[in-house]
C-alpha cells in the first residue's frame, strides 16, 4: 500500500489536523469517562483489593449504590488527596495504618465522624477515624531453628546475647515505625532508643518489608523477625508446609501492640454515604469476613478472631492519636540508633 501525500502538503496543515484530532479524541474520552451519577460511593483504599473487594461488592448490591475504588499504597493515597484538596472525588479513605489519616486530618481534609459510628469500634480521640481491623505485632520464627520453649516473652530479650545475629526487622516499614511510636509513647524515648541500639548492636538484620522477613524466616535465612501477624498467616495459606510460625509476646509487652487499619470520611465527599459504608464495615458479617478471610483481628460487633489466631486478653492499641504526629520523632530515633533509613 502506497501512502499518498500531496507533494507540497504543508507541515502546518498536518499539525493542525493532528491537534484537532487530539482535541476531539480527548473530548470524546472525557464524555465517556466524565459521567458520574450521584449515588456513587468513591473509595480510596490503602487495603489491597484481595482484602476488601468482596465486601465492596456486597455493599454495592445491598444498597444499590455504585462503588468505585482506587487501590494504592496508603501513604501515596494520602499525598494524592492532599494534592486534590477540596476537589477530591473521594468519599472514604481506608488506610492500612493511622499515620496517613492523621496527615490528612492536620490538613483539615477530613470530616469528624458521627458519634454513632465512633461508638461501634476503637477510634481516634479527634473523631477523624475509626478502626476496622487490627494487625498484631508478633515474632515470626522458624520452628526448625527455635524450640517453642526458647521463645522470648518480651521484645527486651531480643537484645540479649542468645539472639545475636538471629533477628530480622524492617526499620523503613510503616508498621515497624508505628510500633516504635507506640513504644515511645508508653515507655519514653530513652528506653525506645536503648532498645533500638541494643537490637542493632546485637547484629539484627534489616529487611525491606514484612513479606521479605517472613520469606527469609521460612527459608531459614534468619531464625526470627518482627512483623505483623497477618503475613505469616497468609503464607500458611499459600504454603501449608512452611516452617514459619507466629509467636505473640506477653500481654502488655511493647512488642504486643496492635496496629489498626482505619476508615475516614473526606470533607469533600458525601458524609451520609461515607458513614453508611463505614457502619457496614463494622457490621458483624463484614467483621466476620475480616476475621475468617483476611485473618485479621475483628474489632466490632463482638466477632471473634478466626480459629488458630490467638487473641490477646485485651486489645492494646497503645496511644491512638500518637500514630500521626509522632512519626517524625520516631524516624529521628531510628536514625540515632545508627539505622540508615
Amino acid at each position, binding site marked *: 500500500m502506497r*501512502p499518498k*501525500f*500531496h*507533494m*507540497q*502538503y504543508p*507541515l*502546518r496543515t498536518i*499539525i493542525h489536523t493532528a491537534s484537532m484530532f487530539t482535541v476531539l*479524541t*480527548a473530548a470524546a*474520552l*472525557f464524555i465517556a*469517562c*466524565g459521567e458520574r451519577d450521584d449515588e456513587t460511593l*468513591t473509595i480510596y483504599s490503602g487495603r*489491597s*483489593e*484481595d*482484602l476488601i*473487594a468482596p465486601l465492596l461488592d456486597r455493599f454495592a448490591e445491598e444498597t444499590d449504590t455504585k462503588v468505585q475504588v*482506587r*487501590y*494504592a*499504597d496508603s*501513604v*501515596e*493515597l*494520602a*499525598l494524592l488527596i492532599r*494534592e*486534590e484538596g477540596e*476537589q477530591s*472525588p473521594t468519599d472514604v479513605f481506608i488506610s492500612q495504618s493511622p*499515620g*496517613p489519616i492523621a496527615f490528612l486530618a492536620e490538613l483539615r481534609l477530613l470530616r469528624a465522624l458521627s458519634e454513632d459510628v465512633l461508638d461501634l469500634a476503637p477510634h481516634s480521640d479527634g473523631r477523624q477515624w475509626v478502626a476496622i481491623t487490627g494487625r498484631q505485632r508478633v515474632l515470626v520464627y522458624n520452628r526448625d531453628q527455635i524450640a517453642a520453649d526458647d521463645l522470648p516473652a518480651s521484645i527486651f530479650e531480643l537484645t540479649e546475647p542468645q539472639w545475636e545475629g538471629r533477628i530480622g526487622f524492617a526499620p*523503613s516499614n510503616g508498621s515497624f515505625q508505628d510500633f516504635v511510636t507506640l513504644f515511645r509513647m508508653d515507655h519514653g524515648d530513652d528506653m525506645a532508643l536503648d532498645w533500638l541500639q541494643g537490637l542493632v548492636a546485637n547484629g539484627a*538484620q534489616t*529487611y*525491606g*518489608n514484612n*513479606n*521479605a522477613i517472613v*520469606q*527469609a524466616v521460612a*527459608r*531459614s*535465612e534468619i531464625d526470627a523477625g518482627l512483623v505483623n501477624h*497477618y*503475613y505469616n498467616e*497468609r*503464607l500458611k495459606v*499459600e*504454603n*501449608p508446609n512452611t516452617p514459619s510460625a507466629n509467636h505473640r509476646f506477653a500481654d502488655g509487652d511493647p512488642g504486643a501492640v496492635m496496629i489498626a487499619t482505619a476508615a475516614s470520611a473526606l470533607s469533600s465527599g458525601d458524609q451520609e454515604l461515607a458513614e453508611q459504608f463505614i457502619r457496614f464495615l463494622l457490621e458483624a458479617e463484614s467483621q466476620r469476613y475480616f476475621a475468617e*478471610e483476611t485473618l485479621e483481628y475483628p474489632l466490632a460487633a463482638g466477632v471473634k478472631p478466626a480459629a488458630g489466631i490467638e487473641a490477646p486478653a485485651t486489645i492494646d492499641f497503645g496511644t491512638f492519636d500518637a500514630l500521626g504526629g509522632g*512519626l*517524625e520523632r520516631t*524516624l529521628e530515633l531510628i536514625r540515632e540508633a545508627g539505622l540508615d*533509613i
Partner: protein
Amino acid sequence: MRPDSTSDLAVTVADPSSPPRREQVLARRAPISLVAASVVTAMVFAIPFGYLVVRNLSADAALLSAVASRQTLDPLIRTLWLAISVSLTATLIGTLLAWITMRTDLPGRTFWRIACPLPLVLPSFVAGAAMLAAYAPGGLLEQLLSPFGVSGLPRIDGYPGAFMVLTSITYPYVYLPVAARLASLPPSLEEAARLLGHRPIPTFRRVVWPQLLPASRAGGLLTFLYVVSDFGVVQLMGFQTLTTRIFTTRLVDTSLSFALGLVLAIVALVIVMSERLASRDVAIAAGEPARRPVVIPLGRWRPAALLALIGSVGIGLIAPVIVLSWWAYRGLVNEAAGFASTEGMTALIEPTWNTVSVSVAAAVVSVALVLPVAFLTARYRSPFAGPLNAVVVAGFALPGLVIALSMVFMALRVPALSALYQTLPLLLLAYVIHFGAQAYRSAQVGVGAVDERLGEAARTLGAGRLRRLWRVELPLMLPPLAAGGGLVMLSTMKELPATLLAAPLGFDTLATRIWTANEGGFLADAGMASLVLIAVSALLTWLLVIRRADHLR
C-alpha cells in the same frame, strides 16, 4: 554547543565522496516549524519539573538546607555510585548480547532475540522478590546445589543485591537499541574489514563498535536514569538512595521530600546535559541495510557465547520465571491459596487487555511526540537543542510518584484540563512524559543514521518534506524507532505509581494486579499475573519490535 563546528566545513564540502559529517549537518538552521513542534513537546515534558519547582517555592525554603545536609549527600553519592556501576555493566552486557544474537551463528537466535529484552518487563519489586527466593540463603539455587555440598550462600542485600537485580533487569535498555542499530548497519563495512584481513574481534573493535557507540551510550544513559528513579529494588535491598530518602520523608516532612525531588531532578538534568556535551561525534555509516545479514561463525567460542546468554537471561528472566511458576503452581494445587478473591484466570482478562492497549498506545504516542525533537537535536544546529534534549530525557529519572502527582496538580489547576482528571488521556500523558526519553534516544540514533543525501536526492526529485519523511527516512529509521517504542511499551506494562494514582477509577493493569496481590501476600496470584505479563510482553515484543526490525533484513 560546539563553537568550532563550522571550522572544517570547507574541507568536508570540498570532498563530496565522504559521508556527511555531523558538524556539517549541524551547521544548518532548523526549520521554524520543527523548532516550534519541539518546543511544544518539551513544554509537555517540563510539567513534572515545573511541578517540583512550584512545590518548592510554596514550601518554606527547605531546599538549601536539604541540599547541604549529610542526609542528602550520602544517599546522593550512593545513588550515583549504584547508577554508574549498574549502567556500565548493563552497557557491556547489553552490547555483547546484541552482537551475539544479531551477528553470529548461535543456535536458537530467534528465541534469544525475544528473550533478551524481557527482563525489562518485570516490575522492580517482583524481580527483587523472585530473585531473593531464587538466590538468597535457603532459596531455590541453594536447594538445587545442596546435594553437591554447597550451602551458606551469602545474604543478598545492600549494594550487591541492588546491583545484581538492577543490572539484570536494565541491560535491555542497551540491548534493544544496539540490536536495532546492528540490524540497520550496512554490512559493507564489516565485509570490507574482513576482506582487508581483520579477524572478527578487531573488526568489532575498530569497525562495528564505533557504529554501535551512539546506541549503546543512549542505552547506558537510560539505565543510569532508571537506577536513579528506582525505588522497588533499593527499598527491598535496604540500600538507601535519594529515592528511598524521598519516600521515607514524603509523609512526615513533605517539603523536605519535594526538595529532595528537586535535587534529584537537577542531578538528572546535569547528567543528561553533560552526557550530550561529552559525546564525541562519530561519522555514522549510513546506507541500505543488508538483505542478508552478516553471520560470523562462532566456532570454538560457541559455548562461551551460549553461556553468556544463558547467564544473563537466566539470572534476569529464567530464575524469576521458575520462582513465579512455583508460586502459581502452589495456587493451582491448593484451592485456598489460589486466586482467592478473583474468579481465577478470567479475572486477568480485563487487566491484560488494559495493559496491552495502554502500553501500545503509550509507545506510539511517545515515538510520534519525540520525533521532531530527535530531528532537531540530531540534525540541526539550534540553541534550543541542549535544553530540549535535557528536559525530554531527564524526566525518566524522576520517581513515578512525582510524575503522577504533577499530572494531578496540572489537571486540577488548569481549567481546560480538569475534565481530563482521572481519564485515560491523562494517564497516557503521564506514561509519555515518564518514558518518552526511551523512544527519544533511539529515535535520535535513528535520525543520525539516516544518510541525508537520500533526502536531498528525494528533494531534487520534487518530494515534499513529509513525503521524504514518510517514504525515505522513516522506513530507514524503523528498527531504532521500533526499539525505542518497544522500550516504552515494556516500561509502561510494568509501570505502577502513575497507574495506581492517575488511572481512571477501577482501571486495572497486570502490574497493578501483581502489586495488589504482592502487598497482601497472595503469592500465587502475583505469580500467575506476572507470568501472564511476561507472556504478553514476549508476544508483543516479537510482533511489534523483533519482526519490525527483522522485516528489513
